[in-house]
């Protein structure tokens, strides 16, 4: 049955969210009194999973949740206080819950007995104050309390129409004694045939207690008499028990995240649920298709506009306005679609408290994690790809960056080390920083290590920045001891490569003795870019707008040639390098008039270094759809990607950092290796970068 599968899918997605929330809050648990909200959260997670698990007949999962829930219920109700070791117990129990959910999702049986130990401990803990606390909860402890009744209760449509709420009735019933309940969804038709106004669910209730009379039970249902099927039978012998671990259906309806049974439930509940849900789930693939389509639309729209602009003149004010309107709306549509893909970083950050907690135990370091900017929104794809690099960087900070307790004490630092992760939007990019207040990078050691590993020459002259960058080079493994914490054979070079794949960059800043800060700069989205269109010798290029600082008309007196062929310019007392785009992109200028005065576009690299790009002309701003060059060809140094412009032509997007690192800064057009005598003309052949 297809619908059922769909509900299951939804259930598991919800489990994922719930468990994530669980992780988030569980690490804040402490021995002694806890924040009520935290306890509630944990309880709700377990409870909601139980509800769904029961509905889908994941018996083992439901049973486990049931016991776990009992424990949390006692804690929540203040009947049990967490003692030393209990917070860890809850976290462990959460791990097992996760395993069981994963197994259920995969349709497999989880490893036998993984939950036994925990259950044993939980049972022992709940055991003591059980007698009066577990009102109606634990049906396993075959309650031998007096006689009772079994009740079959099936509301008719009319009952709902008179605004009677089964949940209230069941609650009233519960006050009479110890109740166990199971929902029967047998009468539920296929979703296509489902009448939302019809009542399909029925409940089998078993209630026990010393002084329950038939009258008191009947009294509960007094007002709905005739609007429901009701069957009340006295239990003769108190040994038999039905439907032990199925969830309490009415409670499940409380939860917006509850399982399928509720989703297809009766009208009043369906309406309530609809009011609560303010989001829908959509497959990422569908959104991606939409993003692609809108991207094409933007290009098509720009192309149409381009070709029409030749025909339309001042006499066609109306048409021009219509076109303007179309352009604006297309842009809005694109922004709207892109926004669908954006998600807050919280989903990612919430994993880290756990990582830090586990690791500080393993390393025996006292570490406090500070998170900032969790609400910052980033493209979903980027979030997914960031998990591994960031986790690795945190490990790195804790293992290599932070000193041991003793070392910290010696240097007069607080015993508690700090790892801080922050995120913010800046210049159309997102910056994520991972900082620690540890020992920082030792320039001397990094340098020595690089020499030992043959990465640099013994007499290489490197700036502080360059030495720090060495740790990102392949073959540079930091700590001498490969620990099982961060030395998994994965170095910072892998982190760097992962980040680069996303179009981002990672840099490090460090002060010896004070700590290090790793900064990731990432694009907000992988699909569009605000660009400045420039022209050089008749060719057009796109410069990412976010990198541009200003544009100046250099005064010849402020420009100097260096002996090595490079050019520098002085601007407000700062000396910056100039890069001739014409030379760097090996454009043939023959036949193209040399402009009288060229412009210098001052751009900033990720390292914060400024360079000037020599161009002929600025053509204006444009948002472009990025198309990777590697999809059908390969990457080229100095080129970040390609963009399709309004005229349908492909233009190259300049890679500022790539250009800064390129070895062709010479404005006379020569390439260092094969200095041609014929200036301004660069052989385009022979050099496959």
């Amino acid at each position, binding site marked *: 049955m297809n619908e059922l599968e769909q509900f299951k899918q939804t259930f598991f997605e919800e489990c994922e969210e719930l468990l994530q929330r669980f992780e988030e809050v569980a690490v804040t648990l402490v021995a002694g009194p806890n924040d009520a909200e935290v306890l509630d959260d944990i309880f709700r997670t377990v409870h909601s999973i139980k509800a769904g698990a029961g509905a889908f007949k994941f018996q083992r999962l439901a049973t486990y949740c049931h016991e776990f829930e009992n424990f949390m219920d006692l804690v929540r109700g203040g009947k049990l206080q967490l003692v030393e070791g209990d917070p860890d117990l809850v976290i462990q129990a959460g791990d097992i819950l996760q395993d069981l959910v994963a197994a259920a999702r995969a349709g497999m049986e989880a490893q036998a007995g993984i939950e036994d130990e925990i259950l044993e401990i939980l049972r022992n803990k709940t055991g003591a104050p059980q007698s009066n606390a577990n009102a109606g909860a634990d049906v396993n402890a075959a309650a031998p309390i007096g006689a009772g009744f079994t009740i079959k209760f099936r509301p008719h449509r009319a009952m709902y129409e008179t605004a009677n709420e089964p949940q209230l009735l069941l609650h009233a019933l519960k006050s009479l004694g110890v109740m166990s309940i199971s929902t029967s969804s047998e009468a539920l038709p296929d979703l296509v045939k489902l009448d939302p106004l019809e009542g399909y669910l029925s409940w089998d209730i078993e209630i026990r207690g010393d002084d329950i009379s038939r009258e008191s039970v009947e009294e509960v249902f007094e007002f709905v008499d005739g609007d429901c099927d009701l069957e009340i039978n006295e239990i003769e012998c108190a040994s038999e028990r039905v439907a032990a671990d199925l969830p309490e259906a009415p409670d499940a309806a409380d939860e917006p995240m509850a399982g399928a049974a509720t989703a297809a439930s009766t009208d009043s509940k369906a309406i309530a649920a609809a009011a609560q849900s303010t989001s829908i789930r959509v497959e990422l693939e569908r959104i991606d298709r939409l993003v692609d389509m809108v991207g094409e639309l933007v290009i098509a729209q720009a192309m149409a506009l381009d070709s029409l602009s030749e025909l339309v003149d001042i006499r066609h004010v109306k048409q021009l306005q219509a076109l303007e309107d179309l352009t604006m709306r297309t842009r809005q549509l694109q922004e709207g679609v892109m926004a669908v893909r954006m998600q807050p970083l919280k989903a990612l950050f919430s994993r880290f408290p756990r990582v830090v907690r586990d690791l500080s135990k393993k390393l025996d370091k006292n570490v406090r994690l500070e998170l900032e900017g969790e609400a910052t929104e980033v493209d979903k794809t980027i979030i997914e790809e960031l998990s591994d690099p960031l986790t690795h960087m945190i490990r790195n900070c804790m293992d290599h960056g932070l000193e041991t307790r003793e070392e910290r004490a010696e240097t007069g630092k607080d015993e508690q080390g700090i790892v801080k992760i922050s995120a913010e939007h800046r210049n159309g990019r997102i910056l994520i920083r991972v900082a620690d207040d540890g020992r920082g990078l030792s320039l001397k050691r990094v340098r020595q290590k690089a020499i030992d590993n043959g990465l640099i020459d013994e007499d290489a002259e490197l700036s502080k920045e360059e030495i720090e960058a060495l740790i990102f080079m392949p073959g540079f493994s930091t700590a001498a001891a490969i620990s099982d914490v961060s030395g998994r054979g994965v170095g910072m070079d892998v982190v760097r490569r992962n980040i680069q794949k996303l179009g981002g960059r990672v840099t490090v800043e460090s002060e010896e003795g004070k700590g290090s800060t790793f900064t990731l700069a990432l694009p907000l989205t992988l699909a569009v870019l605000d660009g400045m269109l420039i022209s050089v010798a008749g060719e057009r290029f796109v410069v990412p707008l976010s990198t541009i600082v200003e544009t100046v008309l250099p005064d010849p007196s402020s420009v100097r040639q260096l002996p090595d062929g490079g050019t520098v310019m002085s601007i407000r007392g700062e000396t910056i390098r100039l890069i001739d785009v014409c030379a760097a992109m090996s454009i043939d200028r023959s036949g193209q008039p040399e402009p009288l005065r060229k412009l210098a576009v001052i751009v900033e690299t990720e390292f914060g270094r400024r360079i000037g790009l020599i161009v002929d002309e600025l053509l204006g701003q444009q948002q472009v759809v990025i198309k990777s060059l590697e999809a059908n060809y390969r990457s080229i140094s100095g080129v970040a990607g390609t963009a399709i412009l309004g005229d349908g032509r492909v233009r190259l997007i300049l890679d500022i950092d790539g250009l800064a690192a390129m070895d062709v800064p010479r404005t006379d057009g020569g390439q260092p290796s094969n200095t041609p005598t014929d200036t301004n003309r660069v052989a385009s052949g022979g*050099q496959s970068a």
Partner: protein
Amino acid sequence: MTAEEAVLATAEAIANGREAAPGQKQYVSFAAGSEQYAVDIMSVREIKGWTEVTSLPNQPEHVRGVLNLRGAVLPIIDLQCRLGGGLTETTQRHVIVIVAVMDRQVGLLVDAVSDILDVSDDKIQPVPETNSKEDARVFSGFLTDEDQMVAMLDLERLLGSEILDQSQSEDTPVQ
């Protein structure tokens, strides 16, 4: 054949399922310089007339640049130049044959599409041993069609080195 005729012929060949007798395969043949070449019809995605391309910096001469084909950016390789001839002097009549190879799409700039050939495998002669082994590797065999030699192109060998990234760590911070 002009580009339009070639497109029609190719489309027709595919549509009619002009499935030749067993052991036979269909090839699209085209002229580049004074030579005739052919590729398996199944690898041909599209044929279109020459349009201006956007050149790429610091690339081999035979990489003419990139082209926008319905939203995808494809490299265009000058076949004559790639095989050791000079740069093709492009005109409106030149043709780009878009082929699929190794999950990528690449355009081959040729002079004109010649024909669609039904060829049985045994008609294709192996490439004789020559001194310049590297060049010979891009051909999978030769076919003598009427009185012309047609070289069968091995696209993976012809284009593999062009489209794969060999330069992984080119931007190391320290030289």
